[in-house]
């Protein structure tokens, strides 16, 4: 018995959607584009602690790393920076609810009358010895975690069930994952058994001095304005426990700095780049606008 209800979509439309998705995947990971994964220019990164040292040692010892911390604290930038420092290819995968192990490991695709095996990003990183960065790993489907487990311990193996083979990771392969502990607490968490496989680094908001340096460097604004932006950031961060779901990240402050640098009115820049993205609650909006107006 076979029937398709409307919610399932007709087989052809779904197939179309799939092929489109696969083409995109293919394009992204096609061999011609491989060069683009190599970071040529040093990404700006200001260390806040001894994270660079930790990363280098983990790399030497072939240990995977987990970066924990709220959004906009420089996790991704750090990985890019490290890839540049270590002169390694970097493959980034932004995980979401539908990311499955197939997306990471690879799949057969049909070309004309043939089927062709297409390596996924993880398989390629394992084969070529690159750094793979799984951003927001807790979001991905559980089979992703299962797939990476044997890669994260002494075995450093990747099983590809569809090909019936296992691949030993190259010595310079490294797995980096990130995870935002505040967001979705209780709903989506990493299991302790997974967490214990990683060397973990916590990312927080940097010290005022460091943060203003970062802002000044990234957005090219003067020191005094950068300091004021940092002060605003600090005050708003005070509200995390008091009702703001996500708080001001360094990234938001940098954005405000950039707007100011190109000549936008300071208050308007802070309002649109810092305050508005944070909340929709009218009272909180008003309060933050008025407060930031008085601070810049």
């Amino acid at each position, binding site marked *: 018995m076979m029937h398709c209800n409307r919610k399932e979509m007709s087989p052809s439309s*779904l197939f179309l959607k799939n092929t489109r998705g696969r083409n995109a995947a293919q394009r992204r990971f096609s061999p011609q584009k491989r060069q683009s994964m190599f970071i040529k220019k040093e990404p700006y990164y200001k260390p806040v602690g001894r994270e660079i040292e930790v990363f280098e040692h983990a790399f030497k010892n072939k240990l995977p790393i987990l970066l924990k911390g709220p959004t906009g604290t420089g996790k991704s930038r750090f990985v890019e920076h490290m890839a540049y420092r270590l002169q390694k290819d970097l493959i980034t995968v932004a995980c979401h609810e539908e990311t499955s192990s197939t997306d990471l490991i690879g799949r057969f695709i049909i070309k004309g009358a043939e089927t062709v095996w297409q390596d996924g990003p993880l398989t390629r990183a394992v084969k070529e010895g690159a750094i793979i960065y799984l951003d927001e790993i807790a979001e991905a489907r559980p089979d992703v975690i299962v797939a990476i487990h044997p890669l994260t311990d002494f075995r450093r193996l990747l099983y590809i069930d569809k090909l019936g083979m296992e691949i030993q990771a190259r010595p310079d392969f490294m797995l980096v994952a990130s995870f935002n502990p505040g967001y979705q607490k*209780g709903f989506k968490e990493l299991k302790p058994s997974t967490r214990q496989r990683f060397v973990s680094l916590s990312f927080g908001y940097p010290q005022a001095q460091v943060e203003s340096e970062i802002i000044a460097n990234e957005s090219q604004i003067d020191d005094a304005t950068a300091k004021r932006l940092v002060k605003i950031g600090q005050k708003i961060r005070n509200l995390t426990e008091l009702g703001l779901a996500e708080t001001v990240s360094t990234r938001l402050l940098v954005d405000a700095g950039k707007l100011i640098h190109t000549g936008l009115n300071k208050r308007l820049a802070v309002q649109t780049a810092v305050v508005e993205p944070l909340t929709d609650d009218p009272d909180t909006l008003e309060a*933050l606008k008025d407060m930031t107006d*008085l601070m810049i």
Partner: protein
Amino acid sequence: MELDQLIFQKISNYFSKRRKVDPAVLARTVKLEEIHGRLTIMARALCGEAIDIVTSEREGGWKDRVFFLPKQMNLFPRPEDNMLFYYFRVFYLATQRKLGLNYHTAREEHSIAQAGEKARETSEQVLKALFAEYPRLENIYHQLLDELPRTDEKGNEIPPDTSWLYGRWMKNEANAGPDEAESISAGQKTQEAQANDITTTLKAKQADEIEVIEVDKQSQENYTLTHNFEKVETVDEFNGSWRDFDGDDQLADESHALSEFNLSKVVRVDDPVHSVYQAEFVGRATIAESKEQDSPGFFLHYDEWDYSHRTYKHNYCKVFPQKALRTQPDYYLKTLEHNRSALLHLRKLFARLNNERMKQRRMSKGENLDIDALTDMFADLKAGHTPDERVYISSRKRNKELSILFLLDFSLSSDGYARGNRIIDVEKQVSILFGEVLNEYLVDFQIDGFFSKTRNNTTYITLKAFDEPWDKAKMRIGSVQPSGYTRIGPALRHATALLHKRPSHNKKWLILLSDGKPTDYDRYEGRYGIEDIKQALREMQTFGIENFALAIEEQAKYYLPQMFGQNHYNILSSPLEMVTALAKLYRRLMK
């Protein structure tokens, strides 16, 4: 009312009606209550603590975690400036608080004039720190200073009254010890008080420093009229002579006299009341702690967290688990009738959710074909591999491994209204609607409620136990009436214990429906209460139980996040919204 009172009232009415307010003044007046929410958020951001804002008698100051600000401001010529004044004061107080400039012990006696003087003396220091941190405020300060009125009502020149800008010093009380234990007999009289209707409510004038004093029963009994010409009924500031309490409703008659009266000392009594004289105050009123009391009936001991000492008070609270026995089938039927559309909506949501859930991919048999699996099979065949034959989608029913405990707040605060809905009714109706649907989908759930009266008595009522059939339990929900206070900690701990007994492979969730504001007769307010709840929630997490809070009161946004943290609470305005929010939450739980 006596004749002289009546005459006074008439005359006073006549004059107060004649005293007209200049419309220009009215137009530039900024009222604290209109910007209260905004200022609270601002103060919290500046201080990094849960600051509250309260109306002051006059210029105000700060005390512990409270900022006192004037009720309204119209001294400055334009409304923007009056608004700026409030902002300036918040920044100023935040700085003053950071510097710790205040009276620190209750023993430092001072008059109001001295307190003002003290604030003026230290203003230079505060301003210096303020301008260093927030340079923009320097201009604002000078602007406000220039615009302070320099003439009085009659046009005479006066020096500007800078006390508005500097405020006055206040006494901190956070560290006052709990040595003054007070025995509270939550006896018949209190219950009587709750049964009696309150017929008059009056708002008190603002008073910054109110002291709670103990009733001196001896002097009260000994009280005799000490003066031949003294009136028997009069409103006067307390001067040490005690009179009897009678609880009569005369407040409406005395309202004029009361409006002239300064509140400075209060006592705690059990007499039934008919009139309410509402005063907003913070202070030592919450310090009293109740003594250990013998209680009849079955009870369980629970610890309470004392944040100031960072220790548990062992076996400090008594929880009386009870089973609701009374039924009210009417309520159940009416709820279903009135909320038919909401229920339908909920059923649809659940049906959809459950269909989604029960769909299992890659089955060897089933009603539908799994397109993804088919594509893979095709690819495998082409590649010369043996294909996987599990290409069907099956809608087999799966057991939901989930235990949910709904904890309802039955304290008196749930008797209030939020946007036209009586809070307790919303709680009851939502639990009926939800119970109905959860029961249909065979989810393991329990519905409980609680209220408290001191640490010696937290009543924990089970309306529907986990293993009880819904058909019996549903009739009971309507029968609960609000009473008592909100000591959330012990109730949470008891609920945790109950959830912990459920099968360990289940995901466990506690959902609290409350305004979330901890209060009790004895010292379960403000920071103490919030910290205890936080601790109870932490304990819960160690048992692997997750929590979520739902509130329908607007005010909840100032304290729920402190306890439950981001993403774990929701503030809503109507039963329908609540139902939808719960359905959404359920969806998140299932994933």
